[in-house]
């Protein structure tokens, strides 16, 4: 059953235009002109209950704007959307009880007080009886390994602990739909892993639907079977992560270590040269040319070490976005 349905969703922002210099400033003061920017343009998709979907795109692509429309924070300019059976922008209390949005770079917890105080407000606002509040608090505290951290002022917590406390605050009312905007932003590897593990368990235990944006591919590969790619406000891919990689990553990464450095001009003839650092060279080679090219490299050069791997997913996605006019 689809819990999120989006049809032809568009968000247009009026952006003021100002020319530089005094003349521009005066013109801007007396006669302000605007141009319309389509932050999100005509996107459609459905998400089934219990799915975890990764939302990928470069900065300014429209990911956060879409999440904000889905969470009911901003009004769409055009199109239809329904989340858990509700029109998000009406922000009806029953809708708000069923959804939550976590923004990695923003915090809702009161900075100078222990997180427990903010949680008490949330419990009252979401009308959780005391016994239920205590039960959920115990459960989520254990899942997030936050024991004895909730009584410390939020400002005294580490970034990772704070993010986990933010997640606890956002999930106290057990939302069915969870929107996550960069939930692991700035966290170290251990904290990123802890947040990912928690989200996986939360999704499995409560069949919660999760839509997540992240710059860390680790988040996407660890959690999402399905990904959506958005670029310049348009949805350019919606499907499985495996298919995306198969379709857009017909490359293998070849790393070689030479006995002595060779000029770049000579190396480029073998394939797409990704980097050269002294004796360490990285190529991206098309799969169908892999064997013959590796043979040529081994014949022509003195190679100490050679390895062939799949390119990192960051490279694949980055490459895809760099192909601005890619036909998909």
């Amino acid at each position, binding site marked *: 059953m689809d819990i999120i349905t989006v049809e032809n969703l568009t968000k247009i922002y009026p952006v003021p235009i100002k020319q530089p210099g005094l003349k521009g400033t005066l013109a801007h003061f007396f006669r302000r002109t605007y141009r319309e920017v389509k932050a999100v343009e005509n996107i459609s998709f459905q998400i089934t209950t219990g799915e975890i979907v990764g939302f990928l795109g470069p900065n300014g692509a429209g990911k956060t704007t879409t999440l904000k429309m889905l969470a009911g924070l*901003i*009004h769409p300019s055009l199109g239809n959307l329904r989340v858990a059976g509700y029109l998000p922008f009406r922000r009806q209390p029953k809708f708000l009880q069923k959804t939550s949005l976590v923004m990695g770079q923003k915090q809702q917890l009161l900075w100078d007080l222990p997180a427990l*105080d903010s949680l008490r407000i*949330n419990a009252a606002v979401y009308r959780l009886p005391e016994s239920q509040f205590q039960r959920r608090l115990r459960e989520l505290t254990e899942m997030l390994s936050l024991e004895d951290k909730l009584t410390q002022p939020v400002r005294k917590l580490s970034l990772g602990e704070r993010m986990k406390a933010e997640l606890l605050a956002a999930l106290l009312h057990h939302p069915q739909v969870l929107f996550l905007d960069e939930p692991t932003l700035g966290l170290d590897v251990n904290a990123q892993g802890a947040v990912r593990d928690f989200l996986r368990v939360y999704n499995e235990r409560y069949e919660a639907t999760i839509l997540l944006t992240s710059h860390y591919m680790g988040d996407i590969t660890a959690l999402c079977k399905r990904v959506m790619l958005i670029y310049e406000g348009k949805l350019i891919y919606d499907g499985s992560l495996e298919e995306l990689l198969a379709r857009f990553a017909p490359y293998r990464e070849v790393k070689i270590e030479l006995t002595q450095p060779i000029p770049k001009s000579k190396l480029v003839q073998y394939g797409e040269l990704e980097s050269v650092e002294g004796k360490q060279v990285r190529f991206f080679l098309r799969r169908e040319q892999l064997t013959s090219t590796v043979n040529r490299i081994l014949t022509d050069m003195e190679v100490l070490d050679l390895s062939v791997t799949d390119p990192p997913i960051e490279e694949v996605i980055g490459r895809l976005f760099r192909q601005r006019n890619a036909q998909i």
Partner: protein
Amino acid sequence: MKWLFKQAKALLSVYYAHMVEYRAEVFLWALSGSLPIILMGVWTTAAGEGNFGLEPIDFARYFISVFIVRQFIVVWVIWEFEKEVVEGKLSFALLQPIDPVWRHVAMHLSERFARLPIIPFLVGFFFLLYPEAIWFPSIPNIFLCIIATAMAFTLRFLLQYTLAMFAFWTERAAALEQIYFLFYLFLSGLIAPLEVFPPLVREIALWTPFPYFIHFPAALIMGLPVNFQQAMSVMLAWGVLFFFLNRWLWRRGIKKYSGMGA
């Protein structure tokens, strides 16, 4: 109803704890409201040399009353709200099934409780310096003053929160407060009691909301003659007007909100 009580209790107790964290700042805020004490010095001296319709002792009592009333009607919602809109922090409040205004109301009321213990010290210190100004207001006057102060706070909050709605359009709504403050300064009775105004100015002022923020509660506690019925009617009328204006602006403004930075 049970949940409303629980929500009020949770918001008030947590924001009280928050305010107590800033106790030094609250003390300084209370002290910063000492302008009436300075004006008292000016007016008591002036009253000794001219005819203003009030005796020097009345001016002293008036300005200490103004000092007390002002402690209870301090409102800063416009700055908070503007920041929330500009920095996108309003988003968190919008995600919860409770109107964002209640957090601001709770913050203001909790701050009053945090400020409360400081006021008797400051008033006591004043009477120590000026013992001839000591007076004992009647119980009915204290009661009426409490009602008037509560209404003054409500109206002032509502008015400033309504101006704050313009943050959705201008993002610098606090500038409106500066214009509004000009009228507030002259017509509220903060720098001079309404009794010293020319009769026509006084008559016009009494149809605006401003004298009811400070002059009216202060006059009640010191026993100056006031038209209680007219005051309540004018406050109520402005309150209703600003309530509907506020909700109208909110409904339109929220459609303009873009959650910048969040």
